[in-house]
């Protein structure tokens, strides 16, 4: 017997879900159930400290800094220049 759940997710994840189900023809409920099962199976096989989280959410200040640097990246340090030019 099926049951219903409700969950808050980010706008971007919702958009990803909508696009994927629209393009693949897969039902949302089926996709969500499979994803949850796969995720829990993976967690059961690996200790949590081994998993590498895919989604990163930043504090407002850190997010602002990243966005600012998309437009105006900081200049490379001399160490970085040396590393990329001759490997030292």
């Amino acid at each position, binding site marked *: 017997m099926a049951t219903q759940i409700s969950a808050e997710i*980010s*706008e*971007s*994840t919702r*958009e*990803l879900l909508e696009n994927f189900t629209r393009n693949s023809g897969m039902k949302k409920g089926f996709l969500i159930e499979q994803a949850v099962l796969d995720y829990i199976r*993976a967690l059961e*096989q*690996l*200790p*949590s*400290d*081994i*998993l*590498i*989280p*895919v*989604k*990163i*959410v*930043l*504090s*407002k*200040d*850190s*997010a*602002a*800094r*990243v*966005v600012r*640097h*998309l437009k105006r*990246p*900081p*200049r*490379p*340090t001399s*160490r*970085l*220049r040396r*590393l*990329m*030019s001759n*490997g*030292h």
Partner: protein
Amino acid sequence: MAINIRLLSDRDDRSRFSSGNVELDRFFRQYAGQNQFRHHIGSTYVAANDDSGEILGFITVAPAHIDELPKDLRRKLPLYPLPVLRLARLAVSETRQGQGLGKALLRFVFELALKLSSEYGCIGVLVDAKKDAEPFYHQYGFYRLEVTQGRSGARPFGTSLFLPIDTIRQAAKKK
């Protein structure tokens, strides 16, 4: 001795690798293989002696994304998350520490990020750095980010550091 940086293979002998850091060694010996070959949740590259095959260092990377940017910051950005390359682990064998291998592995990560950026999209490299490794990354321009969700679970907890891809690109430009 020629050293080659390449993807971890299931034929590599990981059992003898020792960096002196118990957690990094445990990860490499027990989980790097299943992360890569079974679960496909991260890729490990090894620096190996071409002749003997001995593993001298490794990095583990995975694609990740920065999500849920505040609306006022999003104005001129697309709705989807911002892709980054996450450097989850970097270790060098005790016998090779202090000889520049960590730098070579880091440079490899930068080259990987540049390739990702041109082929799929990548706005920078995010490192989960152990406390004692922070100064190493700071000298290349990495700065701290405050991560509220999606911190690495690796123990002891480290710091998230970031370097924008265009800074790396500028450094890689030939004069």
